[in-house]
């Protein structure tokens, strides 16, 4: 284990989606025989995240894998890390251009706005004209970007179609129901991950709109996969977090050992997971998917 990589995320401790990431780097570390670490700001405060990147740089690893969820905040520390001789790969959020700007080797991921936009276009094709975006993490900018992208893809104004649902499942469920009964002509529901998708599923089941209303979601989870299977959820946008974590480790290890580097960025998503070909997805949802 001569090589040593650190992955710094922007997610608070409890965000379940990042598990896949943790599992991804752990597996890659094992397979490539390098040591990997996962770090994150406990409350999801991006300013704290900047400090963690600085800390990681101070510890002098061979490479840092990190997100670029706010270019303003993170570009400084990342560039400093790059300049002090540490190789950096940007994953998950940010854009390829921004990654190049800060001097990262490459970008692996799915820009949030673009993913939302793609989903919006797809929904527009399916005849959706209005929607409800269930934002369970309103204070985080990337979640708002997803909703904004979706609205722009549909070509409508976001306005009041995004709700601050909080993270309590019962509150999410009841808020979705409240919104839908107050706005019965809503065409579609968009959730931003398992935290909001699971209660929304129950809410739709309860008020009989399951299968009736157009339902799309970001990210996968056990219940989401089940929902897709049952035909309640039209699609899940899979940005394949596993790849976002796994590939950078592999790339870095190979680069450091053999000097080989892919010539381009890797778009891990957006891939739309629909009812077709769900077996593996189902098996590993929440763990590697």
């Amino acid at each position, binding site marked *: 284990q001569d090589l040593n990589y650190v992955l710094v995320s922007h997610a608070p401790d409890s965000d379940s989606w990042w598990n896949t990431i943790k599992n991804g780097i752990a597996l890659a570390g094992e397979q490539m025989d390098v040591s990997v670490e996962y770090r994150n700001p406990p409350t999801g405060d991006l300013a704290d995240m900047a400090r963690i990147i600085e800390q990681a740089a101070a510890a002098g690893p061979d490479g840092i894998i990190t997100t670029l969820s706010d270019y303003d905040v993170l570009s400084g520390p990342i560039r400093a890390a790059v300049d002090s001789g540490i190789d950096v790969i940007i994953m998950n959020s940010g854009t390829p251009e921004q990654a190049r700007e800060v001097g990262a080797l490459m970008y692996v991921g799915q820009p949030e706005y673009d993913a939302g936009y793609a989903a919006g276009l797809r929904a527009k094709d399916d005849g959706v004209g209005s929607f409800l975006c269930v934002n369970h993490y309103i204070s985080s900018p990337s979640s708002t970007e997803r909703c904004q992208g979706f609205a722009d893809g549909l070509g409508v104004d976001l306005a009041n179609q995004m709700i601050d649902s909080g993270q309590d499942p019962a509150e999410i469920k009841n808020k979705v129901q409240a919104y839908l009964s107050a706005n019965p002509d809503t065409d579609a529901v968009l959730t931003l991950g398992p935290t909001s998708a699971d*209660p929304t599923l129950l809410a739709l089941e309860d008020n009989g709109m399951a299968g009736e209303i157009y339902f799309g979601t970001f990210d996968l989870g056990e*219940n989401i996969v089940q929902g897709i299977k049952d035909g309640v959820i039209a699609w899940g946008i899979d940005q394949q977090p596993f790849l976002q974590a796994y590939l950078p480790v592999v790339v870095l290890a190979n680069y450091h050992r053999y000097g080989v580097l892919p010539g381009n960025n890797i778009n891990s998503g957006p891939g739309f997971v629909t009812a077709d070909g769900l077996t593996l997805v189902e098996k590993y949802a929440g763990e590697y998917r």
Partner: protein
Amino acid sequence: MSQSAQPTPATDERIKDISRLRQSLIRPELGGICGTVLVFTFFLLTALDSGMFNSQGVLNWSTVSAQFMIIAVGACLLMIAGEFDLSVGSMIGFAGMMIAIFSVTLGWPVWMAILITFTLCTALGALNGFIVIRTGLPSFIVTLAFLFILRGFTIYFPQTLERKTIIGGISDAAQGDWLAPVFGGKILGWLFQWLGEAGLIATFERGTRAGQPVVDGIPMLIVWAIALVFFGHVLLTRTRFGNWIFASGGDAEAARNSGVPVNRVKILMFMFTAFCATVFATCQVMEFGSAGADRGLLKEFEAIIAVVIGGALLTGGYGSVIGAALGALIFGVVQQGLFFAGVESSLFRVFLGVILLGAVILNTYIRRMITGER
């Protein structure tokens, strides 16, 4: 003796008169009652046609209020006993996670997982109380420490055991279990079925359940909330233990001198708070079939807010469970009502803060009238 027996004459020329009506009105719950009337009036006027008051809408805000009520009852009794619990939210997350780990990861029967979790969590509540009693530290600090410790374990356990922070599959495990429906089931389904058939409540017009009534029963969550409020209210006002709770919070030293087992009362109240949090967690886990490491965030504040809106005194010795329940109702109705009324949702927090301030000022005024405090 009789000759010196008029220290307070029946009428006191030094006190201006207070009308009978006003006197019969001032009760600890008055603030809560006013608030409830106000809130309902407001939403009846602004959101009547938004579906907030049809059967579905009513169930909607009732469920949310019931949630708040469950934790508010525990927080209320504990606050009257003079202590505080900031670890309620973390306890909710922790309890849910324990049930999931026991039943899914370890594969125990669900009833056993639930019972062991209840034991474990009330024991943790007792530990909280024990530390507060033994060290004499303010419960704010002790339970703040537990807020962090419990949340840390809630994230750490599933991550090391299952490599994820949401554990699902509890619904499957709970299939056919005898205890699970006590928390996750619904009652009176036949009544709503009948109401639906009789056309008294709306039925689904489309979708998988077309023809069924939109409300197919009362969730056990609401039953638990009512039961706990009833239990708490009777305990507080109708039993000697209730008197001890007031006494412990009013002045622990004086109560101890009078023979009230203050330490026991306080520890029991910490355990009861933990119990309520566990009920909350169990209902949630049984309804949603999964436990997440982020469940219950900030619930401690919500419980305290409901209790304080309901007229309890933050420093103990004064309050009412009915008041706390009304506080929870106000909280739930406002939160959901804003959605029905279509108010920009990020303003909810602003409303909450303003309501809290207003309610507390009103309650202080009422309390001063009742107790003659200065």
